[in-house]
């Protein structure tokens, strides 16, 4: 099997800041039922999950009941609010991925009901199926072989055959190293985890997913740096690590997440990948994003700015618990639909107004947090422009981190973004760390392998050979 990219991006798909706006992607994606993502309308993407309960043979009837209840509530609300269309994401859990028949069954419960609403009421919808990256259950993980991988791929294939429209994953290659990098705020290790391990694993994984999509007629959507930069985001939000570290880490995920599109994925990108605007700028694919209306799943400093250039707008995930009005998934559905209505209404007034709305969304957050600042559309284009010049994903990752530091420092100097006094020194620490990284991937691997805990992951799974004694 060959994991060579089928596409490379040496220039930006988005040609100017005025073309960089929500609802419109250079390469829209058309689904079987005629829905087109990225062709002018922002659609809500709703995700839901089980309330506190175990998943096992004996609880499967309740699991089925829960999903049936959730999808019915969601679709009914979407119909009642005249949603122009809807994307439903099924993020499978470890249990429902390891045992493909369970995942397939749930996938079918959702798809059938979605078809019913399309037939009865004309409510068009798409199902995004996101199997869990269960490879990490074995410690240290096997990335390219073993039963866990096999069942995960079976889940992909069968769910696609059973009508899942879009395939996605939150892949975890390099996560063990990145976790350690985060708590120690070691950008060297983070860059290695993302630019070497993540990139290599995603090439392998996405060559498989794209093949499955081709075989089944499904759409290969995209990946997300969820296990990486979103962990950083959550830790920063809790005050555990500096926000500037999380911001730099986010930008450093770009070459990694881009691999999905180099391998043939076509979007829509996965909601929780906040690096999505960079994917859209570079690869031109439509993206799903999440922000304030995903506060049910995680708090963040990028609640509005995340929407600037989205083509779908998501709640990330919400448990099926009852709120005063309705079950939480129904509540999220309503909120997403209203958010989308507003964006689409502004856009209906003309491109210049969509751009106004975009800029307000951006301005309302970008001054307050470096993580928001690096998502400002002009900054996204500026950094993307530099990154497409790099052929090597590892070098691009290092460069991305360096550019992020540089841009934040400049923003600080210009008064465009605030960084708390005790975070400022971290910009220098990160910068100094980046400078120690050689530009040669082989050399970097040779250097860094002694700094890493090789009991936690298997270099051979990434085609890396341990050269130190």
């Amino acid at each position, binding site marked *: 099997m060959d994991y060579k990219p089928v596409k490379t991006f040496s220039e930006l798909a988005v040609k100017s800041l005025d073309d960089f706006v929500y609802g419109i992607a250079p390469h829209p994606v058309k689904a079987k039922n005629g829905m087109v993502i990225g062709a002018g309308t922002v659609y809500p993407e709703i995700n839901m999950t089980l309330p506190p309960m175990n998943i096992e043979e004996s609880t499967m009837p309740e699991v089925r009941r829960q999903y049936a209840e959730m999808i019915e509530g969601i679709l009914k609300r979407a119909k009642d609010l005249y949603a122009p269309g809807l994307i439903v994401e099924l993020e499978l859990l470890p*249990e429902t991925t390891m045992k493909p028949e369970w995942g397939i069954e749930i996938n079918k419960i959702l798809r059938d009901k979605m078809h019913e609403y399309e037939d009865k009421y004309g409510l068009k919808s798409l199902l995004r199926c996101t199997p869990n990256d269960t490879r*990490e259950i074995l410690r240290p993980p096997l990335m390219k072989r073993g039963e866990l991988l096999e069942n995960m791929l079976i889940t992909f294939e069968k769910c696609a055959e059973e009508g899942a429209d879009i395939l996605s994953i939150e892949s975890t290659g390099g996560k063990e190293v990145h976790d350690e990098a985060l*708590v120690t705020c070691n950008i060297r290790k983070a860059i290695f985890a993302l630019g070497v391990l993540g990139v290599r694993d995603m090439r392998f994984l996405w060559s498989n997913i794209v093949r499955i999509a081709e075989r089944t007629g499904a759409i290969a959507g995209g990946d997300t740096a969820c296990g990486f930069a979103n962990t950083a985001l959550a830790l920063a939000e809790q005050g555990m*690590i500096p926000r500037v570290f999380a911001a730099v880490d986010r930008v450093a995920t770009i070459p990694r997440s881009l691999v999905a599109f180099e391998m043939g994925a076509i979007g829509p990108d996965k909601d929780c990948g906040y690096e999505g605007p960079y994917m859209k700028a570079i690869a031109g694919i439509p993206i799903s994003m999440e922000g304030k209306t995903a506060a049910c799943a995680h708090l963040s400093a990028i609640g509005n700015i995340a929407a600037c250039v989205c083509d779908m707008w998501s709640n990330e995930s919400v448990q099926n618990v009852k709120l005063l009005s309705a079950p939480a998934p129904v509540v999220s559905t309503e909120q997403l639909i209203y958010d989308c209505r507003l964006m689409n209404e502004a856009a209906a007034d003309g491109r210049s107004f969509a751009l106004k709305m975009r800029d307000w969304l951006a301005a309302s957050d970008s001054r307050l947090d470096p993580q928001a600042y690096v998502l400002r559309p002009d900054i996204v284009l500026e950094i993307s422009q530099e990154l497409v010049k790099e052929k090597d994903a590892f070098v691009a990752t290092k460069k991305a981190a360096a550019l992020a530091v540089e841009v934040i420092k400049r923003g600080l100097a210009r008064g465009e973004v605030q960084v708390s006094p005790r975070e400022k020194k*971290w910009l220098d620490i990160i910068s100094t760390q980046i400078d120690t990284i050689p530009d040669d991937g082989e050399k970097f691997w040779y250097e860094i392998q002694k700094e890493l805990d090789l009991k936690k992951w298997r270099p051979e799974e990434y085609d890396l050979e341990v050269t130190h004694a």
Partner: protein
Amino acid sequence: MASFEELSQAVFEGDEAQVVELTKSLLSGGADPLEVINRGLIAGMERVGVLFKNNEMFVPEVLMSARAMNAGVEVIKQSQRAFDMPSIGKIVLGTVKGDLHDIGKNLVGMMLESAGFTVYNLGVDIDPDKFVEAVKKYQPDIVAMSALLTTTMMNMKSTIDALVAAGLRERVKVIVGGAPISQDFANEIGADGYAPDAASATELCRRLLE
């Protein structure tokens, strides 16, 4: 001779070299090793803990302090024959069955160790039986469980049930934490405590062992 104050400050600043030097100086000046630990090393970490709890220190900074403190402890261990590190309590720690989340749990472990607890970190995806085994083996004062998924949090209950079944529940306190966990849930499953974050977990353990 160096002062406990200075040593505590060096720990606080995460200055490993300085901590090593000051510890040696104190010991060679005739200071009681236990006092060096309590009034110097642990005192420094306590200041760290307070700032950390108030969101005024980052984890990597806390880790540097912890590393500095450990370097000091090493110096003491090497200088004394048959020196037993004092422990304020033993804690078995793990992420419950089916759950692979590591970071939060490890932070809790690190904070507990820095506060003077002995921590047995079992890792992630830990079966109720494994918790029971560990309680038998390490005789801890507290079992601390973590879960980040709504579909694994019920395994906290299973673990408590397993402790009951093994007749060990009365011998240990059980505490729980993780994103989907709440005080209500802790009460519901019969845990002895809940901590919303790593910093408060330390406080909670101290309180439970009073």
